[in-house]
């Protein structure tokens, strides 16, 4: 087994609330696992357990082969954590923040200073190096936070919603940074509510909901596994709409969605396409558009959980101050 991060049956309760109801995870060395789920699904709790910040009530997990409870100190020497909220000391400058981490990791002062300078340059923060972090924009804080988690050159990196609240440009910049880290051989556990983000960055995705991993696999695999393809039919004549709805509904086995004249239904079997053509032709329906398309992760989520991923979170996109 070559799993950098491995978890089995993680359970965590907070009073009456069950945050984790048996989470299983396996992240291969040098890959990115996207832990995808809505708010409150258990993403952050999972990361906190794997980062040795929380002890699970049941189950166990290893990082680099070391148990996160028994060998916590060893695990801490392997990981870097970038939290959901930029966890930098706002009263310190960017340079001081990185110097602090370097010194805590045992580097002599000159070495820690050099490493801080190197990271500030790499993350485009040189000009702001000697300004207090509280004066930074949202994007700059995230970059400093990420830089702080890299001071000790971790082999496993946890990114807990690294782009939540960032404007689109900062988000793209951060994605780029993550890709470069992966190219350097770092194993990444990424949590996100953004389906697009998981699709962009992750080699594998684990969909988490109500404290349980409900599906996992490569993004394409996941789409195939959930049968998440859509059959789309648009009749030329509006009068044929009820017939189309009936035919598509019968083939898909669920009531199709109707948007204007476009009838859409999730289907599993790609062989349904010719059947649809035949049946609609027999019924004398003239079709202006007919397609079978692989669905987005949004639809994957819908088909797995029976409800859409929190779309409202997309509104947060432009919330943070621009970089």
């Amino acid at each position: 087994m070559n799993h950098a991060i491995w978890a089995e049956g993680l359970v965590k309760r907070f009073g009456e609330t069950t945050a984790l109801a048996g989470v299983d995870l396996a992240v291969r060395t040098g890959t990115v696992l996207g832990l995808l789920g809505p708010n409150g699904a258990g993403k952050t709790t999972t990361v906190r357990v794997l980062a040795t910040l929380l002890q699970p009530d049941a189950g166990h997990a290893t990082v680099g082969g070391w148990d996160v409870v028994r060998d916590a100190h060893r695990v801490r020497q392997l990981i870097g954590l970038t939290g959901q909220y930029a966890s930098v000391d706002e009263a310190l400058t960017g340079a001081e923040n990185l110097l602090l981490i370097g010194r805590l990791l045992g580097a002599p002062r000159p070495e820690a200073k050099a490493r801080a300078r190197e990271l500030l340059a790499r993350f485009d923060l040189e000009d702001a190096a000697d300004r207090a972090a509280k004066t930074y924009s949202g994007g700059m804080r995230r970059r400093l936070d990420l830089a702080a988690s890299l001071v000790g050159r971790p082999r496993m990196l946890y990114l807990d919603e690294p782009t939540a609240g960032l404007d689109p440009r900062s988000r793209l910049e951060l994605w780029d940074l993550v890709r470069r880290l992966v190219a350097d051989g770092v194993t990444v556990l990424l949590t996100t509510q953004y389906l697009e983000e998981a699709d962009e960055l992750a080699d594998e995705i684990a969909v988490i909901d109500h404290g349980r991993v409900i599906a996992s696999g490569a993004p394409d695999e996941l789409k195939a596994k959930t049968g998440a393809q859509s059959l789309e039919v648009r009749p030329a004549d509006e009068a044929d709409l009820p017939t189309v709805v009936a035919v598509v509904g019968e083939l898909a086995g669920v009531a199709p969605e109707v948007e204007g004249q476009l009838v859409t239904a999730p289907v599993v079997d790609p062989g349904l396409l010719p059947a649809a053509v035949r049946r609609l032709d027999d019924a004398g329906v003239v079709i202006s558009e007919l397609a079978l398309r692989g669905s987005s992760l949004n639809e994957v989520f819908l088909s797995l959980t029976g409800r859409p991923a929190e779309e409202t979170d997309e509104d947060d996109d432009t919330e943070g101050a621009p970089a």
Partner: protein
Amino acid sequence: MTAATTTAPSAPELAPRVGVGEGLRQTGTLAWRTLVQVRHNPWELSDFSIQPIMFVLLFTYVFGGAIAGSPGEYLTFALPGIIVMNMLFVTMYVGMGLNTDLTKGVFDRLRSLPVARWAPLAGRITADLVKQAWSIALLLGVGAVLGFRIGTSALALLGAVGLLLVFALAFSWVSVLVGMLAKDPEKVQLFGFTALFPITFVSNVFVPAATMPGWLQAFVDVNPVTILADATRGLMVSGPVAGPVTGSLLWAAAITVVFAPLSVWAFKRRV
């Protein structure tokens, strides 16, 4: 060890735990971090520098004559108590700082690093003791300029400073508890004002208890602030030493015994 452990040898030099020396060094680094913050936050410097000076000036020149006959005599009476009062307020920075770290996520970052579990707290408290020593020195300096004279010996003065720091250390646990329970740093500050002001004022820091109503005098007599102020007066100016010093140390021990476990409990609940 599980079978998974066998996949670990790629990183052979991982230390199994933190050494005490390493932990102390990390404590020093974290204390540095707390002190260097002051440079970027001059308000804090004014809190534990300008504010106590203002107290000394106001009380000495506004109330001093009326209370003790002359500002000079009043300064001799009040300065040791003002030092005690200021010490209690300064301990609130421990709780405020911890609370800021908790709410801002800095604490999670620190705990995800391979540092001693006790280093973040010890770092805060060490930094606090440096701030305490600075405040005490500052108040004594200002006092000296205004005419305050040490009536005892240098050794007794050192004893007073030591006693104040021991008490500060004990009282830090109260601050830690408040810092763990409060929702945000402002609430810690609010506690500082609403709880510490009455406790420090209902003492003999500013006026002798003789003119207060009997029930209030009863409280003043057992108030640790009074006892510590008496000990500090005894060690810096004149008066009984053994009784109040013993009383102060007993109070410090009692506060630690009650609040240290409570703080640890609150800490475990919070993280």
